[in-house]
């Protein structure tokens, strides 16, 4: 409270002293006008030299102070600056300052916009740089992808070539394994009667091709009815090979070249045709073999399979041996033996054996059995007579001489 009172008292006293001095010290009008003029010119220059809007605000405040400082001297100043007036100059300064302020604000706004645009340009430049980098990366990736694609394309070409080679190999294999009768060198058919077999396997119809081969062979049998036994045996051998290969490769070929839905039906179709083929060939073969034996006056029993054929051969030999053993060898039994042995050795074994074995009509064991039986049959079929007794006597004499010699050597040694 004390300090507040002291402060107020000091302030009032200072104010009084100041006012007293103002009253005491008079100022030159000329100096006042010149000060006014100097300040006016300074303000005018400052307005004209404005560069930023904050300075314009300061100038406007300075103009306000200018008005306060020299407003009381307006009449004096008006006389000095006639025909201008203090208020006119003041208004002019304010207009200039306001205009300059607006211009500066506009310029600053433009500057701000320019800065914003520059930043935008900078940002866009950065984005462009990033985009360029990304484009480079994408271009590099694209090049890598192109290289990979080319590599893949090359790989695909290689795989396609390999698949083509595989197809060619398989198809050649099919063509070589599933042979049509038309391509077999059949003895009974001249070259002129053979026709070129135009069927060939293709990747789109491998199983169909095999089926066609079977069908073609069936037609061949139906068409060529005057084949020899050897021919039929050769055809049988071919059929056995064909069936064996089909059994092994057919399902695999179907896996490769047929759809899953078509696979089983197509296999079954070929199986059915092969069965028909077997039946047709079997009928012709057994009929031909039977005719071959009967043409030599060898009456084998009926047979229509490999087992019945083998059984018929055994029965024929066994029956002949029984007759020879019961009735003794004679010219007739020997003739019967010779007839059969001639067929057996000169036709069957010489010309048919490989086909019989390959065609699985007779095995080598079967043939050996027949051979042994023929030896026995031969012995049994030999006619019994004088010569036979002479041989027995000579043999007994030889045994006797041998015994004497052994005894005499035993005595010499003991002595």
């Amino acid at each position, binding site marked *: 409270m004390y300090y507040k009172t002291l402060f107020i008292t000091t302030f009032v006293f200072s104010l009084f002293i100041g006012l007293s001095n103002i009253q005491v010290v*008079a100022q*030159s*009008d*000329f100096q006042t006008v010149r000060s006014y003029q100097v300040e006016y010119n300074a303000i005018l220059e400052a307005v004209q030299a404005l560069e930023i809007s904050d300075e314009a605000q300061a100038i406007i405040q300075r103009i306000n102070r200018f008005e306060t400082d020299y407003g009381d001297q307006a009449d*004096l100043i008006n*006389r000095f600056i006639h025909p201008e007036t203090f208020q006119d100059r003041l208004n002019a300064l304010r207009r200039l300052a306001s205009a300059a302020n607006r211009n500066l604000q506009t310029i600053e706004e433009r500057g701000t916009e320019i800065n914003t645009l520059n930043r935008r340009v900078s940002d866009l430049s950065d984005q462009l740089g990033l985009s360029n980098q990304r484009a480079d990366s994408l271009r590099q990736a694209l090049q890598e992808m192109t290289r990979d694609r080319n590599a893949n394309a090359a790989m695909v070409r290689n795989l396609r070539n390999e698949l083509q080679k595989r197809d060619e190999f398989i198809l050649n294999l099919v063509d070589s394994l599933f042979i049509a009768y038309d391509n077999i060198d059949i003895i009974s058919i001249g070259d002129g009667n053979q026709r070129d077999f135009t069927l060939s396997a293709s990747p789109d119809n491998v199983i169909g091709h095999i089926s066609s081969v079977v069908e073609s062979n069936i037609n061949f049998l139906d068409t060529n009815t005057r084949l020899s036994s050897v021919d039929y045996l050769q055809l049988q051998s071919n059929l056995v090979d064909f069936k064996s290969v089909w059994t092994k490769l057919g399902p695999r070929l179907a896996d490769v070249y047929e759809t899953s839905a078509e696979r089983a039906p197509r296999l079954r179709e070929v199986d059915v045709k092969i069965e028909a083929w077997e039946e047709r060939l079997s009928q012709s073969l057994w009929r031909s073999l039977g005719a071959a034996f009967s043409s030599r006056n060898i009456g084998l029993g009926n047979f229509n399979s490999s087992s019945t054929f083998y059984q018929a051969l055994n029965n024929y030999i066994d029956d002949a041996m029984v007759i020879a053993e019961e009735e003794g060898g004679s010219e007739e039994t020997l003739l019967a033996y010779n007839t059969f042995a001639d067929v057996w050795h000169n036709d069957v074994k010489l010309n048919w054996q490989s086909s019989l074995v390959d065609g699985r009509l007779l095995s080598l064991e079967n043939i050996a059995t027949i051979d042994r039986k023929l030896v026995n049959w031969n012995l049994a079929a030999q006619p019994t007579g004088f010569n036979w007794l002479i041989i027995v006597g000579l043999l007994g004499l030889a045994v006797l001489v041998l015994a004497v010699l052994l005894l005499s050597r035993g005595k010499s040694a003991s002595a």
Partner: protein
Amino acid sequence: MSKNVFLKIGIVVSWGLLLTACGSGLVIQNVDFSQPIETVMEADSQANVEDMRNGLVFNLSSVLDSEGINANDFAGTSVHMIRNHEGFYFLTAPGFQNVYVFSVGESEMKKENKIRVNGDRIANPAFNQRNPLVQLVDGSRTFNLTKDGIRN
């Protein structure tokens, strides 16, 4: 008797003055010559001064002689001058002891009065127009002047 004589004489003088006035031409009355702001001029080495605004040119040698100041020493000094409402010029300068009052004649300024300022010589003078007075300010001193002298 004497009153009539003086009355007649007055009438004759008045008519005479009236006739004189009519014979001298047009006169403008109640002219205010007061100059609102003093003129400050710079003297050269020959004590010449020039009021650029009003085209007034004259030489101060006689005044400097009166003040005892050498013109060369006075060169560059500001000379202050103001005209009062009656048309008299008041002139002084730093180093002067007096304020000179001039009337205007034909191509001449004629001293009407020489007002002495008491105390120190004038150091930093300035005239202010304070009709009907002219105020002389010299630092902390002020003087109210008429053509006849200092008025308290």
